[in-house]
């Protein structure tokens, strides 16, 4: 069984980040780490590999040279090898462009199951796994809170707010897991040492046979704004407070 895990390199912290002149995040300069949700995805792949013998896990990322750090971590967490799509033309890729490159890489590798974290912490790239599935023409199971892989099919459990539901699809398929699927274990020393000997392949867009590459969206302007997350209200009258909370819940579609 061949599992491809899509991973992303993200900055350590979202504070004090800046946007470049081209309105893209200055991520090349920032120290970063493996996106947390993707860590869960690699761990889920590793859990599958521990239950059956025939599993080969490949971690794939695209990004600047520093993104190789995310792949190293994925190798420590259980991936068998890794692919880094590295090309100057990738800078500033949007979700669709990212998905096209990743889909081409996955297609070239061959796969039974593609895993990914369901959201990356630095931008709304949660669309990527679904796009990759669409481009590959395979079913997608997004926001998997629970993942179970059977012989020829995959099952997920997910709770969208009204209780847990289970969905299933035949393999090959794409699954995006959430951070609810279980904390990854910190790797053992042995795993850390073994990772030194695993291979990281570097592919260019030409290797993937992608000639023209470019986003389908463009950033027009970026402006800083004050952050005001909390709204604290005093409940002199509990009824008023209750209505305020109920309105808030309704607004966020919990009622």
């Amino acid at each position, binding site marked *: 069984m061949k599992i491809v895990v899509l991973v992303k390199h993200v900055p350590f*912290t979202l*504070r004090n980040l800046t946007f470049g002149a081209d309105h893209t995040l200055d991520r090349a300069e920032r120290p970063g780490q493996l996106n947390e949700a993707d860590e869960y995805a690699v761990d889920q792949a590793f859990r599958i590999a521990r239950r059956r013998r025939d599993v080969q896990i490949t971690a794939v990322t695209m990004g600047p040279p520093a993104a190789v750090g995310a792949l190293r971590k994925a190798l420590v967490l259980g991936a068998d090898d890794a692919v880094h799509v590295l090309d100057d033309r990738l800078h500033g890729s949007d979700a669709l462009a990212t998905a096209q490159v990743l889909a081409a890489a996955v297609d070239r590798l061959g796969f039974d199951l593609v895993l990914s974290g369901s959201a990356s912490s630095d931008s709304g790239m949660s669309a990527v796994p679904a796009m990759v599935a669409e481009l590959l023409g395979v079913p997608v199971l997004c926001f998997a809170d629970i993942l179970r892989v059977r012989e020829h099919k995959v099952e997920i459990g997910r709770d969208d707010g009204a209780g847990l539901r289970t969905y299933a699809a035949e393999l090959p398929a794409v699954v995006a897991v959430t951070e609810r699927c279980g*904390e990854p274990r*910190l790797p*053992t*020393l042995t795993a850390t040492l073994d990772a030194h000997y695993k291979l990281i392949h570097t592919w260019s867009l030409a290797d993937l046979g992608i000639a023209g590459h470019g986003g389908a969206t463009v950033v027009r302007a970026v402006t800083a704004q004050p952050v005001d997350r909390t709204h604290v209200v005093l409940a002199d009258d509990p009824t008023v407070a209750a209505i305020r909370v109920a309105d808030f819940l309704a607004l966020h579609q919990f009622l």
Partner: protein
Amino acid sequence: MTVRLVLGLALTAVAFGLAGRRILTLLRLARAGQRAEPERTTHLGPRLWAIVTEVLGQRKLLKWSGPGLAHFAVFWGFLILGATIVEGYGALFDPDFHIPLIGTQAWLGFLEDLSIVAVLVSLVAFAAIRLRHRPEHEGRRSRFFGSHLGAAWLVLFMIFNVMWTLLLCRGAQINTGNFPFPEGAAFASEAVARMLEPAGHAANEVLETVSLLATLGVVLGFLVLVVHSKHLHIGLAPLNVLFSRRPRGLGPLLPVHSGGVPVNFEDPDEDDKIGRGAIEDFTWKGMLDFGSCTECGRCQSQCPAWHTDKPLNPKLVIMSLRDHALAKAPYLLASSDDERAKLPRDVLAEAARPLVAPEASGGVIDPDVLWSCVTCGACVEQCPVDIEHVDHIVDMRRYQVLIEAQFPKEANVMLRNLERAGDPWGRGAKARLEWTAGLPFEVRVFGAGGEERLPDDVEYLFWVGCAGALDDNAKRTTRAVAQLLHEAGVEFMVLGSGETCTGDAARRLGQEMLFQELATQNVETLTGAGARKIVVTCAHCFNTIGNEYRQLGGDFEVVHHTQLLSRLVADGRLRPAHPVDTTVTYHDPCYLGRHNRVFEPPRELLGSVPGLRLTEMPRSRETSFCCGAGGARMWMEEPLGTRINETRTDQALDTGASVVAAACPFCISMLTDGVATRKEQGKAADDVRVTDVSELLLRSVRAENEAPGTLRQ
């Protein structure tokens, strides 16, 4: 005459043969262990001094006066009675034998008799102690719980036999005229002689020979028994004391060693042994520890885990390891695989036992035992023969974490947070200056003005710590200390987001790899900033930065805030003028007190506050009872037994104090929880508070009850 010589020498040969074979096996077993850390054989001075105080002076045994005195008497009795064995062997050859030079002097005869009497009295005391505290009677609370009771009684019986046969022999010698000492010296022997005299000279001659042979026989039997039982300590304890960590087996943990060399975690060797995954992974010093254990149970009597009905008992850990090592010995010492295959089935079964596994899977040490340890060091502190329980437990944890990835899953959350965010709660570097908000002065942050070294006017680097920066109770302490330092005119700086966790919890959990990562980063930060004097509020940071960073080349002078503040008060730079009318009990944090011997400064601080009355808990200073947070237990569930923090809280409440003071954020957190629970149960008064020593000082330095800007509870 010839008969008794032949019999005596034959007995001796048999006994020496039996004992020698055993000693050889034990020696080979010890050599089957790994090489020990090289520091164990250096610094001979302190090591010999330890022999003088702990072996000859019986320092640690005398902490418990009754049993300590009895042991003192037996120990010295045996040393002195060594002379009677020489005399006995001499008498085999020559009935008139006496030790040259001093052999006929009255004082020696008196001393020998005194020793015999003292040992007999001590035996009565030992028997009384064993009867009074017998496990059938006291259950888990008995310090002999799980000890080999039969062997212990047998040893007492054998000592008794040595004594009475000796006395009999000496009495008979007096009557036959073969006694080397002048009349009036050997008072007990003479009393026996008077009783035997009516039997006549011939009978006494026979008695002399028989009892002499009996004495030697019993002594030789005892020798064989000793090398086959827990009484090995007679020979091993002095060696163990000699090779133990000095000044004590507390404070810093040793780095992971393999083959006597620290493991380089950036590029470990493939053959490196990480921690202890099997009995043969222990060093020869470990084996020596196991062999030295006398099963006295002083360790368990102090153990907070055992006290709260958890399965961990330091004595039983050491005993299990020893019993396993001995049972597996034929397997370990076999010279070839063929020979191994021919071993009896029970030996092969023993060899197949995993070192750490649940009892049902045949494990030598149950994981519940391993993970119950708070590394408080109370066992190490008590152990009369300097066994290093905590080191062995952490070494076994290291294997479980780094090689097997088997540990309580809650701790994984802490480890991942340390790895991803640099603090155990995952708050991240950005939150580390939140505590400064609202202080009436500006806290200087290193690097904020672009400086790359600490400016010259900065006397102390204030290491705030994760708890100090992020935990709400601990933030109060941090603010209090900052205000006091400001008040005293001490220039200090903080690192702000430049700090990460010191790695204490990771290290004590056994995650040495993560510890090395965090520690290396911190040593680089501190060295890069040119930090020399560092003040900390956390007992764990205190221990780690002060003791353990040295292993990574970071040499800093670290003071605990209670030390610095007490110096400032003594120098008159802080004046606790306003009375704080309250009764306070002080809880010694393990990593400040027992591990690092800072007992007085917090008490001096409390003593300097007018109106404050300090009442001590029965378990304080060296015998302080852990709050339950040490050894990374802060980051694990406590599902077994009762709560350690609540037990300690009860001890504090029993003093009647209305303030429980401590000097470590984790103790404060645990005790706060304990007091809250007791309040909810109606077992504590509503006004009982848990607080850091510095906050009481601040209240006294300032007039206000509540310092401005301090968070309210």
